[in-house]
């Protein structure tokens, strides 16, 4: 099984530790993982802003980098979802459809492809899970509160096996954090209010650390937490799963 690692643009530049944790974790799990050096961005920032046409170059570059792998794994539900859902703007060659079918968010890959739940991590803290929307309602990494059906969560499956970890429960378990890409800037007032409400819910639930599958949501929440000097830490789920404190 040949796995290509996609590190989203903002993780590459601003949160390299998330990329490092992801790579180390996959290697620990004996995955034959390669990081293709020509990668940039999945194209989502332009596309969600209404400039899908400007993202064609990024889409093509993505496919070029990952067409030869059995799986593409990324520590971002949002990017994986974008490739799956919106790469219909470039011609659907075999390479494109393969990449779209084989792209996986990290937890999804570990639980549903590797069929592993216990990654031998230790992390003795109270963890509040932020279920990023594109992972939850886009990739269906877990059941959401709107739909009627069995309850499940790949993220919680993994965290429940982490030694010492205690999951807290929110009053609104899957409300959006308010990041939303350029929304964070164009609808600044609402974005900030949503983030503040989300953080309050986590604080009320007794969480010490907020984690998620998406660094973009976390960057927004961390920005608010740091500005308001609130007693919460923010870590990408890869960092927790790769942890052995």
């Amino acid at each position: 099984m040949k796995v290509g690692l996609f590190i989203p643009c903002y993780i590459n530049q601003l949160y390299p530790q998330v990329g490092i944790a992801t790579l180390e974790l996959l290697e620990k799990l004996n995955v034959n993982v390669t990081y293709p050096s020509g990668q940039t961005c999945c194209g989502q920032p332009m596309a969600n802003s209404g400039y899908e046409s400007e993202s064609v170059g990024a889409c093509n570059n993505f496919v070029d980098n990952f067409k030869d792998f059995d799986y593409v794994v990324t520590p971002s539900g949002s990017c994986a979802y974008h490739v799956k859902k919106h790469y219909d703007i470039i011609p659907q060659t075999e390479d494109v459809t393969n990449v779209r079918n084989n792209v996986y968010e990290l937890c999804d890959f570990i639980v549903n492809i590797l069929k592993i739940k216990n990654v031998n991590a230790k992390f003795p803290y109270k963890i509040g899970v932020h279920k990023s929307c594109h992972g939850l309602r886009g990739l269906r990494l877990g059941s959401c509160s709107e739909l009627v059906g069995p309850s499940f969560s790949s993220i919680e499956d993994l965290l429940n096996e982490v030694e010492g970890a205690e999951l807290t429960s929110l009053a609104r378990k899957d409300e959006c954090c308010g990041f939303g890409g350029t929304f964070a800037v164009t609808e600044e007032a609402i974005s900030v209010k949503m983030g503040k409400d989300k953080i309050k819910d986590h604080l009320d639930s007794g969480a010490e650390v907020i984690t998620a599958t998406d660094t973009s949501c976390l960057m927004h929440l961390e920005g608010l937490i740091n500005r308001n000097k609130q007693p919460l830490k923010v870590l990408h789920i890869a960092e927790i799963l790769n942890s052995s404190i």
Partner: protein
Amino acid sequence: MNHSKAASIFNKDEKKVDWHDKALWFVRHKRDKAVHAVEGWESLRNYGHGIKAHTLSNLDNYLIQFEENALKNGVQVHWAADGDEHNKIVHSILKAHNAKKVVKSKSMLTEECHLNPFLEADGIEVIDTDLGERIVQLAKEPPSHIVLPAIHKTKEEVDELFQEHLGTKPSGGDPQYLTGEARKHLRKKFISADAAITGVNFAIADTGGFVVCTNEGNADMGAHLAPVHIACMGIEKLIPKQEHLGVFLRLLARSATGQPITTYSSHFKKPINGNKMHIVIVDNGRTEQLSRPDFRASLHCIRCGACMNTCPIYRRSGGHSYDATIPGPIGSILSPGKDLTKHSSLPFASTLCGSCSDVCPVKIDIHSQLYKWRQIITKETPQPFVKKASMKMMGKVFAKPMQFERVGKVARWSLRNLPKGVINSKPNVWGKERDLPSGPTESFDDWYKKRTENEQ
């Protein structure tokens, strides 16, 4: 005013935002409780979606069938291409019956057509009889929600309105007292009305009948007492058969308020002996929306308002911030089809979280349609130069790995080295209330290269 501006004004009063958010979340919560108790809920949604999709794919024939049957039932049928024609038709019916006093039950269509001011201009009194609608009518405001028209009003505000207009005593906003006073006030209006106007929730092609749902009983009080009943409906209200009501009446109230069904689901077919019944069938942009493959599913909407109650943006910005007859997520995919420029900010008033699509009882892919409207809006309406240019630049940077690396280096250096005051200065909207990440010395790329070199 665009949505973002209106929303930031609404957010100046954080307590009110919290109050509004909680009130609507409470309704969303009641909806959850109700639907999770229904065996086969997701099948019910699939059926609702399927029946609506089928109906639209055969709409002209169903409209003809509906008209034929309604005529057989002794109902007069009128056709209006747009809102103006709708208003003229209603006006002419009222004139023909010399009707001066009209009671109206909830109809978003008549809101959309701006019927009230049209009739009032000719001296006709129009009383909205749904309590929430009456409240906003007295306040001279449009509804801020399609099911809960006065959800933005506090009980104290209602108390003051009623003191001023209905002569009630100050009650500190006692809902029981205020509702009782409204009942007395509206009883007088029902008894003296010359005509009743209602909306239509579902129109049945097979029988020519139509169904109106209310909790208050106001549609029935109006329609059964007045000598003339005018029912106004958009062409998308059709369903093929009466048995399909079984699906939609199970979906509607649970999604709207968490009730298992509305108090009254009234099935009108023939007028009372000696009375008149009219149906006005309205297009007003609907056939155009039908022509758009990406957006036609928006016509499935049964106006439950669940997408508003669940929308984290709607809850924190209020219905009026959308400046459209139908606010919230569903309004944001319907309105651009009517006036792309006026409503160009609405599809961007979303994080694309997808909760609206999952809560929708007829499975409209609302968030996907929001995304698609964005693509159209940036092409067909004027966009700020900076936004356009930066998107073009990003597109180029991300298409070529070398450029991406160079730009990334500069950005990280800036985050590390520029003073906070510069980083969070005015052009950086992000930094108004949020810190930016600190800007690490090395990117993941740098780290990976080093690691590879060390290994060799």
